[in-house]
């Protein structure tokens, strides 16, 4: 220790490699002072704090008010979502931003959270910080979401809307015919239900057609 202190005082900064080696030596050495019980207990408590903190962080960044935190979301997509059927309906059940845009199971949720860092990056760049910029980019952004939905077979929709749980007899004739037809053809929700919570981009019908044709050619049913 004396040697280390003297060296730190003398040279000012310890070379990083030597520092890492010393830390590793400290961690690899069996503890001489603390009982195994204490170490396990401290580890357990620290685990609760850190894992809890991690989950708390995930949840705080996974709700409507956080999503609205940046004005790109608040001024564009959130305003369009308001009064849509997923925001207001006769029974009062709501599906807010993360219910549809963040997967619910842990693995996919983590992957989506890592992808979201790209969105933070572009927020900092100010790529869509005006309505005009947003509308100009909207076609591409919408296509990203549509493609993701097709890749996951509309997994986030199906968290609530299940073909198996649908009572077709209680649907109107048009919905009944089209839903049974879609189920037979192996279609997924997003194939028809686009722009249900947000306004569509300009030229949406053409890009929908293009996406369906290319996608269905690559992924035959």
């Amino acid at each position: 220790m004396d040697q280390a202190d003297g060296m730190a005082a003398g040279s000012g900064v310890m070379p990083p490699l030597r520092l890492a080696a010393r830390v590793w030596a400290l961690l690899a050495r069996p503890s001489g002072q603390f009982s195994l019980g204490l170490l396990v207990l401290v580890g357990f408590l620290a685990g609760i704090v850190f894992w809890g903190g991690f989950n708390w962080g995930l949840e705080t960044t996974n709700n409507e008010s956080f999503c609205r935190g940046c004005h790109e979301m608040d001024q564009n997509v959130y305003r369009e979502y308001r009064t849509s059927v997923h925001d207001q309906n006769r029974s009062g059940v709501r599906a807010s931003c993360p219910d549809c845009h963040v997967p619910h199971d842990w693995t996919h949720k983590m992957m989506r959270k890592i992808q979201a860092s790209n969105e933070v990056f572009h927020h900092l760049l100010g790529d869509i910080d005006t309505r005009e910029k947003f509308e100009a980019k909207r076609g591409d952004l919408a296509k990203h979401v549509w493609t993701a939905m097709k890749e996951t077979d509309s997994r986030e929709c199906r968290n609530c809307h299940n073909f198996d749980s649908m009572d077709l007899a209680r649907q109107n004739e048009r919905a009944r015919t089209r839903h049974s037809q879609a189920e037979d053809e192996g279609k997924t929700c997003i194939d028809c239900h686009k722009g249900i919570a947000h306004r569509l981009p300009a030229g949406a019908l053409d890009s929908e057609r293009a996406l369906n044709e290319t996608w269905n050619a690559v992924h035959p049913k």
Partner: protein
Amino acid sequence: MTGDGNRGKRLNARFLLVQDYLSSRWRVERPAAIAEESQGAGWLRPAIEGQKKGRSLAFKRESGDKKGVSIVTWKILACLIVAVFACMTSPADAADSLQSLRGNAAVNEPDPSSPIYPVREGQRYERSFLQQPPMIPHRVDKYEIDLKVNQCLRCHDWPNNAQENAPLVSVSHFYDRAGTKLDNVAGQRWFCTQCHAPQVDAKPLVANRFQPALEK
């Protein structure tokens, strides 16, 4: 042509009349031209005669004699009396006596909401007259129709109509107002719900004698 000439003269005479009236208040002599002009427009003559009288009265008033002053006093007095009466009658009396189209409803009272008629789906209402835009046999309240997108065309435009098994937009909708044939639905036909309405069993808002062609 003669009629037009007369009309010009008449307008001119009317303008001069106004000018004459205004100028009389500043004690400017009426131009001699008006006298000749008014000969042509016989129908103006009595009015001009009246104007002359008015002018003579105005002269008197402005010359500051006592009769003019007393007229002003009378006017002020009349205003005061009217004001006193207006203060004595309360607004509640006025509300009792006045009836709006809504009856005795207060101005800020909300109207009762109009009834909601569910859309009749699964059947087609026949047209009531030949030129009637066909009614929509399904709900359209969530469809986006704006400058960017028209979601009706997702099924009703060619070539989507075939795979969606939906009726095609009438060919007339592919002509612009100059009669040029277009590849897409013409701009003036873009907003479907301007003419086409979802079919509901709504009652007429006003009693009328309209009879559908089929029932005649």
